[in-house]
């Protein structure tokens, strides 16, 4: 039928137009970061050609900032926080769903406060605490805060996955006299692997992209994360368009690369109905 055909075409036109709006600004920034200054202003929409290609912005970013250090800091903070959120979160989710004890519902409720209440609002006290503990301006301070921030949602999601593990499995292990810790680490934990992609998304992205806590808790170049480092670099070099575009692209490209590689797991995790 013609009418239905026209409808399908119309739907695709809308989706293509919106996709262009979503990806256009990102492409524009990345494309122009590879161009010489004249070409950036002369023809912003043209892709870099042999004549206009230039890496001068990237050279400046490498020379003028500690981008390598920032990148490593972000990597360390994100990976350690994520690892511990997964470990502590899975252990807590298992205990909360598997063992019945007085106060378990209250404890689950207590742990879920952090899903809705942003930890940021406690910043004044967090900064005081970290100063007293001598952790001010360390990556440890960031990691501790990010674990506390990531745990509530990860416990919530992992609990749903723990519930789906067949009861027979752990009962069989228990009959064989396997200790509880081994049941968790050798029987349950491997079965939680599909949940990891989902939990990792909800943990990694906010940590990697966070500006607030690095701004408050770190003050020296050696502890800045990539988001804060790039933000400060951009503020300083705002008139140097080559550098600004290069710094933006360097912050965008790793995230886009990881996203493209894992987007299938990521989106299936998001839409798996784990978050209701």
């Amino acid at each position, binding site marked *: 039928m013609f009418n239905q055909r026209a409808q399908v075409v119309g739907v695709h036109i809308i989706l293509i137009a919106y996709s262009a709006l979503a990806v256009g600004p990102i492409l524009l920034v990345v494309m122009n970061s590879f161009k010489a200054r004249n070409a950036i202003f002369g023809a912003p929409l043209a892709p870099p050609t042999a004549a206009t290609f230039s890496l001068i912005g990237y050279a400046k970013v490498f020379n003028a900032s500690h981008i390598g250090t920032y990148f490593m800091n972000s990597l360390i903070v994100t990976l350690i926080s994520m690892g511990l959120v997964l470990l502590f979160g899975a252990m807590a989710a298992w205990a909360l769903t598997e063992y019945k004890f007085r106060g378990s519902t209250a404890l689950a409720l207590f742990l879920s406060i952090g899903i809705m209440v942003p930890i940021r609002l406690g910043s004044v006290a967090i900064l005081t605490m970290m100063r007293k503990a001598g952790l001010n301006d360390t990556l440890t301070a960031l990691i501790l805060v990010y674990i*506390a921030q990531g745990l509530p949602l990860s416990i919530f999601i992992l609990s749903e996955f723990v519930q789906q593990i067949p009861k027979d499995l752990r009962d069989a292990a228990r009959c064989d006299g396997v200790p509880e810790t081994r049941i968790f680490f050798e029987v349950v934990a491997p079965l939680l692997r599909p949940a990891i992609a989902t939990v990792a998304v909800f943990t990694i*992205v906010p940590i990697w992209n966070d500006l607030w806590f690095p701004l408050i808790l770190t003050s020296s170049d050696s502890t800045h994360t990539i988001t804060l480092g790039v933000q400060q670099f951009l503020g300083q070099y705002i008139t140097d368009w080559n550098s600004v575009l290069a710094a933006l692209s360097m912050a965008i490209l790793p995230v886009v690369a990881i996203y493209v590689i894992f987007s299938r797991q990521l989106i299936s995790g998001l839409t798996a109905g784990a978050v209701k």
Partner: protein
Amino acid sequence: MPRGRFLGLLALFLGPAVAVYTLFSIYPLIATMALSTYTTDNSGAYHFLGVANFGTLLLDPDWSVHFWNAAKNNLIFFIVHMLVQNPIGIALAGLLSLPGLKLKGLYRTIIFLPTMLSVVIVGFAWNLILSPLWGVAEGALKAVGLGSWFAPWLGLPSTALVTLALISVWQFVGIPLMLIYAALLNIPDELVDAARVDGLGQFRIFLHIKLPLVLPTIGLVSVLTFVGNFNAFDLIYSVKGALAGPNFASDILGTYFYRTFFGNQLQLGNPTMGATVATVMFFIILVGVCLYLFIVQRRLRRYTF
């Protein structure tokens, strides 16, 4: 299992999570609220004030003018998200969930991409694009014959806030899109098939059958938007700085909190007043979440399956 060993197991499994979470999330929240009832003098000693700080914040013109301005701007920021982000998210989710649509995976991946990026990056990228210096936005408008519409939106007091809100919408439209898309996929096929047999078109199926069924998810998206908006900071700070210019036109509670707590060119940092602002933000968020839990969710339960 003996009681002692059972308690030991619970401590082993729950201990680390409960300890880190309590110490670095719940305790700071409570300590911040406690701090909001104190003031410091020049020697650094703390004096208990009761709720006087709240009176200062809400009524003393030195504080309240900026506070109410930030609160009003934050409300506008939220309303723009509700009116633009969520309807676009719902519409795109509706299109993507059409049966037999080709390339839906690709569209989903592309449209969700901005959500993955740091707000700082997004803010700066748009700052460049909308800049009259570069002229990309102006050129794009000229190409469609609307060149005269262009203005330095981010720089004008009348348009800065709404422009920033729309940048935020552009970035985060992926979240309502994904959550509503997931909810749409969960609708049982029988319901939709029955309507199709009755001769309803796709648009009317969406409007009359699917949309009412995903109302609980729309409620959830709304409360997530509310919490996110009333806690927002990064975008305004990276595009407009801590002073949220021009002339505080884009100031929201997050930037006001930062300035009060850390200080800036105009004033010294004040931890107790910072704690007061944070406590007020906490109660605003609490009211929003409670409204969702007690009113919206209860009413919408009736439609769930």
